[in-house]
């Protein structure tokens, strides 16, 4: 990639024999918002710390604007970093905190004052400069931390679960604000989170981390609609997974037999005939109907019995027991297909082949 602002080439980190990061390669284009999404211990924060220079990689290269970063100490990298618990200096006021990186760059005092005032008002804290961190709320502290990491206009901003300590409502508000700042200032951002909704909402692209590796990287719709591994399908959103064996492969689709069902699904990767796979279907892509009624044709149709019915306001959630399998279905209330079913009702669950993906089963044999 030519216009990549940051590039990681098979970056590895082992701690006394234990592999934390196992060959990460990823490139960030200028102005892109990339999320590292994964469970704790998946290596995303370690990768971020290696980019910032706080952790030394065991192997691999990190390049910023084509220049190798490895030989530079963290204080010469000029990369903004927003820490999980803000890490504001407790003995300095908000303005002093924000001025700190500018002082380190020996910028004249008058200009420092101007820039601090400008960035504080950008994050909506124009009148809070003289407060100490302990006199600010969590959300305000997070804004100061953001201002401090942006004020020296770094080419790259790293954020390590910056909203993790905030309550839900404030977190959602800050997500929007960060997104707006990103758009307004065209910053290149790497954002670490374990919250899949947050990643889906904020990112241009998401890299899903698992066991020190990137399982899949793509745009949010890409990952949601076309997960390539079982882990991604499971981690992002809710998914029904049907185990089975591929009977036939043709034109990007395949036929899968398993558990007495015969399913048609998109080929999620290089799936071959005879392979053990999972068929993944999102609960909101499946439809419920009365098995007696004729409805528009779908490639997949499973007959079962409603074993759980929950009303969620905007939608209804059902669990349908069909043979040995359980299928979760979410129906939008008020949609054309919405019918209320109760526990015990016989139903048909239907979904289109294009709304489901066959995913290779290698994790199953590997770990669980």
């Amino acid at each position: 990639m030519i216009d990549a602002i940051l590039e990681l080439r098979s970056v590895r980190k082992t701690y006394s024999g234990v592999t934390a990061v196992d060959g990460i390669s990823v490139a960030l284009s200028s102005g892109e918002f990339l999320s590292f999404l994964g469970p704790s211990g998946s290596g995303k924060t370690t990768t971020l710390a290696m980019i910032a220079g706080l952790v030394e990689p065991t192997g691999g290269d990190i390049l910023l604007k084509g220049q190798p970063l490895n030989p530079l100490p963290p204080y010469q990298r000029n990369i903004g970093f927003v820490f999980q618990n803000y890490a504001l200096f407790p003995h300095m006021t908000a303005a002093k905190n924000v001025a700190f990186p500018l002082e380190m760059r020996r910028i004249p005092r008058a200009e420092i004052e101007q820039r601090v005032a400008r960035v504080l008002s950008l994050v909506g804290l124009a009148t809070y400069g003289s407060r100490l961190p302990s006199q600010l709320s969590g959300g305000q502290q997070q804004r100061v931390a953001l201002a401090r990491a942006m004020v020296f206009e770094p080419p790259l901003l790293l954020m390590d679960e910056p909203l993790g300590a905030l309550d839900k409502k404030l977190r959602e508000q800050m997500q929007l604000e960060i997104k707006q700042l990103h758009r307004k200032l065209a910053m290149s951002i790497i954002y670490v989170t374990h919250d899949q909704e947050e990643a889906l909402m904020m990112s241009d692209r998401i890299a899903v981390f698992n066991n020190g590796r990137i399982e899949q990287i793509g745009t949010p719709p890409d990952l949601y609609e076309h997960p390539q591994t079982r882990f991604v399908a499971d981690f992002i959103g809710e998914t029904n997974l049907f185990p089975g064996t591929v009977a036939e492969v043709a034109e990007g689709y395949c036929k899968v037999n398993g558990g007495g069902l015969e399913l048609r699904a998109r080929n999620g990767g290089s799936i071959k005939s005879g392979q053990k796979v999972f068929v993944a279907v999102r609960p909101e892509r499946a439809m419920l109907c009365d098995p007696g009624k004729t409805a528009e044709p779908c490639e997949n149709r499973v007959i079962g019995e409603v074993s759980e019915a929950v009303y969620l306001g905007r939608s209804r959630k059902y669990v349908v027991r069909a043979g040995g399998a359980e299928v979760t279905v979410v129906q939008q209330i008020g949609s054309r297909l919405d019918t209320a079913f109760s526990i015990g009702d016989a139903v048909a669950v239907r979904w289109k082949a294009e709304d489901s993906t066959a995913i290779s089963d290698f994790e199953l044999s590997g770990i669980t």
Partner: protein
Amino acid sequence: MRPSSRTETWWRGLRITITVLLVIFLVAPMLIVVVISFSSAQFLMFPPPSLSMQWYHKLFGDPAWIDSLIASIEIVVPTGIVAMVLGTAAALGLARGDIPGKRIITGVLMAPIVVPVIIIAAAIFGAFRTWNLNGTLPGFILAHTVLTVPYVVSTVLASLQMVDERYEHAALTLGAPPWTVFHRIVLPLILPGMLSGLLFAMVISFDELVVSLFISSPTFRPVTVQMWSDVLGDVDPTIAAVGTLLFLFSLLVLLLEAVMRRAGITSPLVGQS
């Protein structure tokens, strides 16, 4: 399970009684010494027949006492400073450094608190005899530094635990080289711990007798040694006057420490976790 208010009052009464008795037990002897120091009698007796300042006059008129007080100050001030600097450096290394054998190093540094003082005293005396340090100011400073460093190490370690390592990481990513990180971020945050370490070190050095007894000479002796030899001779209330001065000094230092601590809590230096 709420205990009835009657048992609650009863327990409270018992707690208060025990606390008051304990405080009397601890403080009364010191107060008696203070009172005796103002006695008009020629020997230690309580209660004194009437009050007078004669023992303070005698104390400040006697060159042996004056010299030993001066010697004590000459020892205490440099000891406190040296112990603070060395103890802080050790604490920083132990808390942040990536060095092997941390536990062993900590153990050795803390040993002077655990090892019986008489053993340390004998060892220092033996070593100083070959180095000709017995009865000298540098010898005293060295010996007292060994005894007081552990206190500085533990107070600074405690305050370093309150300094999130992420502050240092944040400062690094913001462009501060390690030395700047230390004096702009770490030092201001651990300063209260360093100062209380300094005060502890000074009180302990001022109060130290056993080691001082071994390494002092007739011409250079701190005030504790002077008191000791005075007690062995004819006892008069001068000793009570000196005791009162020592008591006052410790009290002042502790008050200072408490004031600093309070200032530390209302200012942002301490209390951030």
